[in-house]
């Protein structure tokens, strides 16, 4: 990394307080998707997240429930986008006020990103717009997602993401034609990069944990929850999302191919007409106008932006990867069961 460039953090270090607050807020808000602001400091290659505060819930959260059927998810996605647009000012005011007051009590009142609930990474692509804004303001900003479904399985699922530089540049210019993608050599794997997370406990926090050790003896339960074989929910949900992502992908693909074919067809006809006109002109006849061809093809919908396809691929990839990692764990569990049974 060059010394002159703004230092992009390589590790995200979360204070125990911030981690616990995020888990608590996201979990408590279920089935609603919760989100909030991360506060902290950039210290060279480490991004310290020392505190956070939740964003208030909107009143009309109906469309935000994760238990909605998948047919309404597209509508929901659009609604969410609109909401983000209209709510900005309101939310901005809340954030500014809260930050101002936190500063008074010496909290690191720097926005270093935001967090959100995410079921198996399902809304990572929707988060791009917000994350883009954060990263424009502060190149080190991260998005931390908490996955309640995977946390249930006995280990905490907190992940930190950042948009890649290449993606940021493209997104800034809103350039996503096939040519642009080719030039930047950006593939669907390069939208987000994941950053490792470290948890930091201050000595006093450790003192508290030692104090508490008697009152949570069931830490073992958490440890052994990981052997839970009943995993259909996770698997089903993941597959459902995967199928949906593939559907979206195929649909986009179909549209694109249709668009391409139509364009090719039109160009072909135009070419023929022009050749014909050329011939007619040579013979001294009046050329036939091209308007009827344009009329026949109408205005073709512009689907030249490959952003949707890129995101769809990234989604499919994401779900497939998670299935894979899940299956690996399940193998371990199943074989452990076998060992115990025999």
């Amino acid at each position, binding site marked *: 990394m060059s010394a002159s460039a703004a230092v992009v953090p390589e590790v995200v270090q979360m204070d125990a*307080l911030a981690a616990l607050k995020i888990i608590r807020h996201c979990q408590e808000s279920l089935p609603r998707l919760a989100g909030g602001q991360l506060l902290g400091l950039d210290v060279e290659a480490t991004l310290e997240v020392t505190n956070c505060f*939740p964003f208030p819930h909107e009143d009309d959260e109906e469309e935000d429930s994760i238990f909605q059927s998948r047919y309404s998810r597209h509508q929901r996605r659009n609604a969410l986008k609109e909401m983000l647009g209209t709510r900005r000012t309101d939310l901005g005011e809340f954030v500014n006020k809260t930050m101002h007051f936190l500063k008074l009590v010496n909290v690191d009142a720097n926005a270093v990103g935001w967090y959100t609930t995410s079921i198996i990474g399902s809304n990572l692509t929707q988060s791009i717009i917000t994350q883009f804004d954060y990263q424009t303001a502060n190149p080190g900003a991260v998005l931390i997602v908490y996955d*309640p479904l995977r946390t249930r399985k006995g280990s905490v699922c907190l992940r930190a993401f950042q948009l890649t530089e290449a993606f940021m540049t493209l997104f800034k210019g809103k350039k996503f034609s096939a040519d642009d993608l080719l030039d930047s050599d950006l593939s669907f794997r390069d939208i987000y990069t994941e950053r490792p997370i470290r*948890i930091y406990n201050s000595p006093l926090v450790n003192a*508290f944990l030692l104090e508490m050790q008697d009152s949570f003896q069931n830490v073992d339960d958490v440890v*052994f929850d990981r052997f839970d074989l009943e995993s259909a929910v996770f698997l089903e949900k993941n597959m459902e999302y995967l199928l949906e992502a593939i559907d979206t992908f195929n649909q986009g693909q179909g549209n694109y191919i249709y668009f391409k074919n139509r364009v090719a067809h039109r160009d072909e006809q135009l070419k023929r007409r022009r050749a014909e006109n050329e011939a007619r002109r040579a013979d001294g006849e009046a050329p036939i106008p091209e308007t009827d061809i344009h009329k026949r093809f109408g205005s073709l919908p512009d689907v030249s932006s490959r952003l949707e396809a890129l995101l769809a691929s990234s989604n499919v990839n994401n779900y497939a990867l998670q299935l894979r990692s899940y299956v690996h764990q399940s*193998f*371990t569990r199943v074989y452990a069961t076998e060992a115990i049974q025999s």
Partner: protein
Amino acid sequence: MDALHLNFTSAPKGKMHPVVVLSVIDHYMRRPEGQNRVIGALLGTRGVNGVVEIRNSFPVPHSETADEVAVDMDFMAVQRELHMETFPEDDIVGWYATGPEITEYSILLHEFFASSGSRHPIHVTVDTTLSNGRLAIQGYVSSVLQMGSASFGTQFHPIEVGMASFEAEQIGLNLISRGLYSADGTTPLAEEMNNLESSLAQLADHLDEAANYVDGVLAGSIQPDNKIGRFLLTAVSAVPQIEADAFVDMLDSNIKDLLMVLYLSDLIRTQLHLSDRIDKVLAKHARKEESATASA
């Protein structure tokens, strides 16, 4: 005849979420220079059975000098409002202070909190100075000593404050307590697979321990304990008795399912990568041809 009334509204119990303690600790560590203790508001709900659930907190700036104590009331009012926006069900139920003891200002502060929102506030001290080598957490309620209509003092009664937590908080605590013995206080967030591995290792340890015990008892070197024996029996009988064939069938079908999912998901990914590659190669090729015809 006048009697001494102890106005003791049925002794409540406190239940505190770990997040609150962590917030208090964080507040203490960020206190202004020269200030020995910090205070703040506790938020939560009052249950019907007198249990106060303390779910959240926010710091309140204050200053103490030899002869006066000042609290930033505006700060508190706005914070409360902001907090209500996110957690509408919570309200102020009391206040916290750091340090081991109740000072003479505690009564004034307690009255202030009682007058601004919470009728019978509870007071919790968190001993961040570790005065007895422990991070002691103690709750109090106040009662007014009255003789007839004349009151002549406020008394703090210690009450029980326990820890409450949700399942997710437990998992969170489990996560942060992994950093308990690391040198610089940090722990990397482990992959799920590593977690599973450590769980397996723990299970193996437990089994070894049990086996050692049983061996010891059988060899006569350990005094047998009926209680432990009964626990062991329950544990062993908890493993369901399944016919070997049936079990193998179950196992096989389970593994086949998993393999199928694995295969399909890998296939999907391969397909994606392939189409991405082909797409790019084709596009590059097309571009090359274009430039060739253009230059020709």
